């Protein structure tokens, strides 16, 4: 992958959901764009490990960037998900109160939301809440309902956004780590492990590393602190415990531990919030997971620990400025920061993407819009969601739909192949998993792993022992028994 001679108009650093949606919005313009990530796939940072909530937008201080982009982004979310074939559910959210102290908090959130323009919020009585969500703790006293909130698969949105950008001409450069940035508007040089990349403007969407990237460029005016959040994910058999995203009253630790049903129908509980030393620290801890569980059962006592299928952790990129940092650097023209995008960053990302595309285009003298821009993706419904007739028809067209690779999530060989062959497709076992759900079910890959390894090795033309789980060095197998 020698890109040394190519000069891009725009280089985006970071292929998370923010970089992805910035790339997608920019790919509507006539420009040479690349999106760079140090990982082998997109969605391997915060965008792959968060709650996946499309927040209504009552948390942030009215007038802040967080509030503005959250409310705009949330409004855009259903439309963009439809275009990109990403599942989104308008589930609504509840913040619970257990006493009068909590109720005051709800009142504050309510007023915040009204000031920011959040629609449809209501403070509900205990009875109404329990009618809506009969399995909640009957000790609640009130709840704040926000009907505009929803849930989305964050990594699916991330992947689809970049795929859409790639379909529209953007280049996705994997395993390319930016190590240094020199130059100015019109001629930036990004030095990377894969050689130099030249670009007229640079957009810093590097997640938790965005402060380091800004420093490299010569404008390190902010710092980001990694704050970890840990989760427990339950089997789909437990789905349906709650319909809404259910928060406990916010505390100094953040929005509080929540209980929700993901778009895919699993129960998710978490996160806690702990500042950590390392930006690479995605370990889970027994204490944190215990805390998450003990707190979540206050929301809903019916959580069965035996049905946990996995746990994970994500790092919030908390800025010392208190708000999202979005805009052109004052010191280095042509260098744009999209940094400190902690929660509600996912919800805000569609709006951030549009906004950044506009200012970047403006700074390049107003880019022309592409005539043949494709705003959506050709996606297929998942086999598991089809009715019998559809299943029968699609199997006739493509027999690979008759080969079930992942028994827990009913993922077919056709879908695994498609996930690899698509633009910006999967290269790894985790890549296949995030795109198809193969390995995300209750057996967590025990059954499908050998099949997925085999398909990847054939499709990518590599040996089985070269097939990786994620980044290189994470090979699944080591060597042959009988070489």
């Amino acid at each position, binding site marked *: 992958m020698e890109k040394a001679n190519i000069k891009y108009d725009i280089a985006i650093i970071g292929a998370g959901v923010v970089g992805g949606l910035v790339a997608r919005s920019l790919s509507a313009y006539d420009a040479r764009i690349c999106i760079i990530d140090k990982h082998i796939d997109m969605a391997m940072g915060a965008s792959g490990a968060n709650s996946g909530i499309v927040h209504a937008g009552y948390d942030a201080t009215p007038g802040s960037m967080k509030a503005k982009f959250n409310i705009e982004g949330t409004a855009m979310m259903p439309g963009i998900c439809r275009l990109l074939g990403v599942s989104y559910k308008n589930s609504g959210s509840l913040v619970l109160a257990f006493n009068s102290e909590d109720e005051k908090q709800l009142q504050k959130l309510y007023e915040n939301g009204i000031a920011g323009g959040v629609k449809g919020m209501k403070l509900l009585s205990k009875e109404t809440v329990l009618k809506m969500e009969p399995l909640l703790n009957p000790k609640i006293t009130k709840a704040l309902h926000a009907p505009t909130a929803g849930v989305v698969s964050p990594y699916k949105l991330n992947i689809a956004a970049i795929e859409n950008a790639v379909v529209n001409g953007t280049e996705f450069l994997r395993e390319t780590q930016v190590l240094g940035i020199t130059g100015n508007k019109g001629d930036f040089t990004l030095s990377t492990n894969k050689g130099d990349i030249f670009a007229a403007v640079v957009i810093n969407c590097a997640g938790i590393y965005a402060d380091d990237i800004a420093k490299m460029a010569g404008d390190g005016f902010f710092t980001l602190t990694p704050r970890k959040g840990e989760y427990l994910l339950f089997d789909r058999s437990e789905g349906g415990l709650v319909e809404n995203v259910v928060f406990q009253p916010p505390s100094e630790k953040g929005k509080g531990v929540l209980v929700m049903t993901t778009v895919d129908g699993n129960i998710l509980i978490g996160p806690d919030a702990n500042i950590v030393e390392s930006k690479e620290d*995605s370990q889970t801890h*027994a204490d944190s997971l215990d805390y998450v569980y003990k707190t979540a059962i206050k929301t809903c006592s019916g959580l069965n620990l035996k049905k946990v299928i996995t746990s994970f952790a994500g790092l919030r990129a908390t800025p010392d400025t208190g708000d999202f940092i979005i805009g052109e650097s004052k010191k280095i023209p042509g260098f744009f920061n999209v940094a400190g995008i902690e929660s509600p960053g996912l919800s805000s990302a569609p709006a951030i993407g549009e906004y950044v595309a506009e200012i970047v285009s403006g700074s390049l003298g107003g880019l022309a819009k592409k005539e043949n821009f494709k705003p959506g993706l050709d996606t297929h419904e998942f086999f598991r969601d089809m009715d*019998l007739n559809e*299943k029968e028809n699609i199997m006739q067209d493509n*027999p690979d*739909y008759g080969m079930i690779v992942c028994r827990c999530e009913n993922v077919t060989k056709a879908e695994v192949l498609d996930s690899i062959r698509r633009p910006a497709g999967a290269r790894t076992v985790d890549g296949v998993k995030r795109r198809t759900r193969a390995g995300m079910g209750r057996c*967590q890959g025990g059954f499908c792993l050998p099949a997925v390894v085999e398909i990847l090795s054939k499709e990518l033309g590599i040996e089985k022992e070269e097939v990786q789980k994620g*980044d290189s060095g*994470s090979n699944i197998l080591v*060597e042959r028994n009988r070489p």
Partner: protein
Amino acid sequence: MIEKRSLVIIGAGPAGLAAAVKAKKAGIKDVLLIDRDIQLGGILKQCIHNGFGLHVFKEELTGPEFALRYIREIEELKVEYKLNTMVISVDKNKRITTVNPDDGLIVYEARSIILAMGCRERPRGALRIPGTNPSGIFSAGTAQRFVNIEGMKPGKTALILGSGDIGLIMARRLTLEGMKVRAVCEIMPHPGGLTRNIVQCLEDFNIPLKLSTTVIAIHGKRRIEGVTIAQVDDSFKPVKGTEKYIECDMLLLSVGLIPENELAEEAGVELDPVTGGARVNQYLETNIDGIYACGNVLHVHDLVDYVAIEAEKAAKSAVRKIKGKTRKIKKRIELITGNGIRYTVPQFIDVTDKEEKIKIYFRSTSIMESIKINAICKDEIIFSKKLKRVAPAEMEYIIISTDDIRGRKMIIEARAK
């Protein structure tokens, strides 16, 4: 497309194979055996070690050889089977929906169904082992498949968590293939697998077995680099100060099997929360008329021989049902697990007007020596059997006559002699 069959058997492991052979021999012409794999034999295909068949064939066979005995019979009897065919749903009217790359979607309507889908392994998530999420963590059965069928090494140095038979067998297997096994850790104070396997798989190769020990953290960003193990107290909580770092590039989990019952649940089959399998009567019939279960999908077996024997019983019952030869049920007796008994199969007994001798399989909750197994009806011991020793890893049984049963309940318990 809808097709009809008298008997459809789902799963062609030893349970499905034995049931199919039995039913065909008993005169059911249209038996259909379905499996999602491309070969008959179920999990036995990857169990290349010996130790199978002592009861059924009176000789010691490897897993593939054991399966082959049945497969040859299947071929000779011309039992119809479909491979590469996944059953995606079963309903209470005994309609079975299947998919297959060659035929697409076919729905079968059966008069009887035997569930023989085996089980799957419990994954890491179920244990909530904290730490990183690198590659190199396998369930023992997945590693077994990689090593024995695909001829691939999943790592170089292993720690095995769980001393169930699969874990023990894999400890030996990896060692024979030149991989190093640092230890087998078991959270319980006693080993989970058969003593024979402790001797031949661990002791023979000087592999340490660490009891009352578990993995409390996983380390390594990309591929696993090591684990922290620690001893646990009586309530299975790690004891501070006993933590130890063990370097390894592979962690195998042999931490239990879960019957594969999604299909059964969907059909409305009631499950036993302890076994994870269906609740059945002495004919191995579930709460749904004409749906039977046997093998690991019913409860986890340690000996394949018992699987085959159980499967034949299920087949016999299904055949009787298909031929309309079932007796009228007079009353239903619930079996209650008393002191020291983890579960029983069957879970209930249907008493007819003819006396029957009923074999009740059970597992104990812990290792107990010199005990009596009692069956109690209306506070009275109606049957008692002495046993030198029971262990959770080893299934035992008692035989009870229906004529001795009184009332609607029977408690099975283990007591010191």
